[in-house]
């Protein structure tokens, strides 16, 4: 089943990266339990790296929280995209929301039918959650030198590859211009904005770029 294969693949890819987070967290001075708490409670890879990195380089708690939260404002956009696809019921939505990550939303939105979108969201979200936390535990436990370990076996290259594979169907269904605009905005913003901003600006660019289409459809 295609959706399950995608969910499994992206879980394995991010799980592999979770090992790196576990090691990174220990290197940044976090305890074993704090590293695990990060992955279980915060549960968004890039924000965890950012926050642990700030703490490790001597930053304050508020700087660490802001760095992570800035990276996560995109979760708000993902939530808006997922809201019409989620089941009814306040409690269910509250529980499902914890799984609102790049990977689960990407697997869900790659599907056309509602039941496959929901299944993809849960399969992607729960799969990544399980492997991400196990991998963090593994990484924190072995706590060997991160950057070398990760880059030598090419694991860091799996993340953009996974995102590209998830973007691919959209490129072929006429959204290539939107994707190109998003990529260009992100590249242009990387050098002069804090981490996380390029992705937000890409999202913002799409909102602004959609305005002319509204006016046309209204007239």
């Amino acid at each position, binding site marked *: 089943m295609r959706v399950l294969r995608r969910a499994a*693949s992206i879980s394995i890819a991010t799980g592999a990266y979770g090992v790196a987070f576990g090691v990174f967290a220990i290197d940044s001075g976090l305890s074993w339990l704090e590293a695990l708490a990060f992955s279980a409670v915060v549960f968004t890879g890039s924000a965890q790296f950012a926050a642990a990195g700030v703490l490790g380089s001597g930053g304050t708690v508020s700087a*660490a929280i802001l760095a992570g939260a800035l990276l996560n404002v995109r979760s708000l956009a*993902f939530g*808006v995209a997922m809201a019409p696809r989620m089941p009814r019921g306040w409690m269910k939505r509250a529980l499902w929301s914890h799984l609102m990550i790049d990977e689960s939303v990407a697997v869900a939105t790659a599907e056309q039918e509602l039941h496959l979108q929901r299944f993809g969201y849960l399969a992607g979200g729960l799969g990544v959650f399980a492997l991400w936390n196990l991998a963090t535990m593994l990484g924190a436990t072995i706590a060997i030198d991160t950057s070398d370990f990760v880059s030598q076996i090419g694991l860091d290259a799996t993340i*953009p590859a996974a995102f590209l594979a998830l973007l691919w169907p959209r490129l072929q269904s006429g959204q290539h211009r939107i994707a190109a605009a998003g990529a260009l905005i992100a590249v242009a913003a990387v050098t002069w904005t804090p981490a996380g901003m390029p992705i937000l600006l890409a999202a913002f660019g799409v909102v602004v770029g959609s305005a002319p289409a509204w006016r046309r459809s209204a007239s």
Partner: protein
Amino acid sequence: MTAAAWTVLGLGVSTYLLKAAGPILLGGRSLPPRLLSVAERLPAALLAALVVVTSMSEGSTLVLDARAVGLAAAAVALILRAPFLAVVFAAALTAAVVRHLA
């Protein structure tokens, strides 16, 4: 509590609020058509931005390194209609080989 524990708490709460705002506040209602059209476009822009940021940036500098070569290998695999896991594996293997040769 340690600084890391406060960070887990603060970032955990703020992250959850960001994740849950859309689903909880919107409830079972659907969005106005304008907002829906934006929501339909957002993933493509976000995913494309994530591709370039995770492959070509190191902090706030743009770098072209083994990750970009790995990404190119992934693109080739996608053009050849390779399955998802093969795409990801091609990227990792290519990046590892490039680093080994460099």
